[in-house]
C-alpha cells in the first residue's frame, strides 16, 4: 500500500473529521475503560498499574496534544472552558485542551493501552492516537472529570470471515 491509511484534518474542514481507511483497526481494545484519574481506576485495577497508566497518559498528553497560540482557536475545537494555559520554554504562553482522563485497556495482554481523553466542543469524549481522532464516548451535561459523567460509545461490531472460504477449501488461489 502506498497511500495514506487515514487522512484526518485537525484545523481545516469539519471539526475532528476522521476519514479512516477501511483497514484501519488501531482503535482502543475491547476491554478499554475510561477513568478520570488513578483513584477511579484503582477501584477496578491494582494501584500500581493505575498510577503508571495515569502517568503515561499525562506524558502523551503533554507531548502530543494539539497546542494553540490563541485561546479562541483552542476553544473553537474543544469548546469554551475546555482549554488551559501553559508556559512555553521560550517564556510565552500557549493553550492546549484540558486532559479529561484516559482510556486504559488490554489488561489481559502484555501491552497495556493508555490514551488521553479530551472533551470536544460537542461534549464528545475523543481520543487522539497517531493523528487519528476516535470518538470513545460522551460526557454528560454536568461538567466534571468523573467516570459517572462518561457514557461509553456503542462498540462498533465488525464481522469478519465473509470471504476466504473458497481458498480454505480449495487451497491455492493463484494459477
Amino acid at each position, binding site marked *: 500500500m502506498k*497511500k*495514506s491509511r487515514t487522512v484526518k*484534518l*485537525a*484545523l481545516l474542514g469539519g471539526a475532528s*473529521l476522521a476519514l479512516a481507511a477501511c483497514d484501519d483497526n488501531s482503535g482502543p481494545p475491547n476491554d478499554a475503560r475510561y477513568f478520570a484519574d488513578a483513584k477511579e481506576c484503582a477501584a477496578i485495577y491494582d494501584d500500581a498499574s493505575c498510577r503508571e497508566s495515569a502517568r503515561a497518559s499525562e506524558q502523551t498528553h503533554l507531548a502530543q*496534544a494539539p497546542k494553540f*497560540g490563541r485561546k479562541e482557536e483552542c476553544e473553537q475545537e474543544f469548546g469554551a472552558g475546555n482549554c488551559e494555559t501553559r508556559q512555553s520554554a521560550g517564556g510565552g504562553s500557549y493553550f492546549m485542551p484540558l486532559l479529561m482522563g484516559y482510556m486504559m485497556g488490554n489488561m489481559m495482554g502484555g501491552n497495556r493501552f493508555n490514551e488521553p481523553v479530551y472533551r470536544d466542543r460537542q461534549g464528545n469524549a475523543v481520543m487522539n492516537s497517531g493523528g487519528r481522532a476516535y470518538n470513545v464516548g460522551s460526557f454528560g451535561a454536568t461538567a466534571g472529570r468523573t467516570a459517572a459523567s462518561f457514557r461509553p460509545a456503542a462498540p462498533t461490531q465488525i464481522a469478519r470471515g465473509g470471504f476466504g472460504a473458497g481458498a480454505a477449501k480449495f487451497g491455492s488461489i493463484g494459477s
Partner: protein
Amino acid sequence: MQRHSVTPRPDWREHVERDLGFAFHTIDGALYWDETACYSFTAAQVDELEAATNELEQMSLALVGDVISKGEEAFERLRIPRVAWDAIAGSWQAGEKNLYGRFDLAYDGVSPPRLLEYNADTPTALFEAAVVQWDWLQSLWPERDQFNSIHERLIEAWRNFGLGGAHLHFSAVRNHLEDGGTVDYLRDTAMQAGLLTDRIAIEDIGWDGARFRDLDGNAIEALFKLYPWEWLVEEPFGEHLLSGVTKVIEPAWKMVLSNKASLALLWEMAPNHPNLLAASLDAGGIAGKQARKPIYSREGGNVQLLDGGKVLQETGGIYGAEGFVYQAYAQIPSFDGNHAVIGSWVIASEAAGIGIREDVSAITSDTSRFVPHYFE
C-alpha cells in the same frame, strides 16, 4: 499510464469545501481541481517514479555538499547573493532538516522519468495531492491504491524535526488563497504532531532588535515560510533571518536547489543520467530544441521554447534578471490534448507520492488543472 474520463461526484464542490476546507478548487473562475478525468498507473510505473525521485533527491543533496565545499565559485555560478553564503553553508554544516520538495517530471509511462525542475523551497499543490485526491479515491474506489502517503509522512516528519517546544509560525503572503491554503494544511499536520503552532502573514512579522515577534508579541522561535529565500535575503529583515536567530523551514541550504542554475550543475555532476535532461548555463551550450528558463522563476514564468535560436513558444512574467538556464527539450506527453506533468513529492528527503497537473499548453503554469490518479 493512461488517462480516463470520470463522472465527477455530484456534490464534490460542497463536499471538498465543507469537509476538507479546500477553498481554491476554482481559480479565477476556471476549474483547478478537475475530477472529470484521472490517470492510472501500473505498480511497476509507480515503483519507477519512486526510485527516480529518491535518486534525484540523493543527487540533489550531493550537489548541495559539492557547491558548499567549492564555495565562492559555485555560489557565483548559481547567482546566489553573497550575503546568503555563510547562512547556506552554516545551515548545511549544522545538519538543519528539510521538510519537503517537489520534482516536476516528464513521464509517459514508457521512457524513464526526466527532471524538468526541482521546486525545493516553496512548492505548492501539496494539499491537493495529499488530501483531496486521497479523499476522491476513497469516495470512488477505496480498494484501489494511490502513490500518496504524503499526509502521514508530513506528520511523521514534524515529529522528527527536533523542534521541541519551539513556537512554530506558519507564514505566507497575505490574502493569497492558494498559498494560504497550503500553509494552513502544513500547520494542520504540525498540530497533529503535537507542535505549538501559529499563523502569521509574512508582512506582519515583526523584529524587536533581537528577535522576530508575532502580532501578540510572542517570539517567532521557528518559522515555516512559503516565501522564496532569494526574496527574503534581499528584503529589510533579511539580514536578521540570515543571522540564525530563528530556525527557518525550508533551511537556507535549499537556496542551492531552488534556483534553476542547479539543473546545469546537476548535469555536470551526473552527465547522461537517465533521469536528467542536458542543461547548460551558456546560450548555445545545448544543441537542438530546448527550453530557456529564468534562473529564478515561479509558476512557469518567462519560459521560452527554442529551436536553433527561433522562439517556438513563450510565456510572460517578471523573471529573468539573474540570467537563464538552457535545458534540452523534453516532450511532455499529451493525453487527449492535455500535457501532463508529474509532481513527485519528497517528504524529509524520501519519495512520498505524486500529483498530476495538466495544461493545454506545453508550458505548465499556475493555471493548469490538478487531476487525481490511482494505480493497480
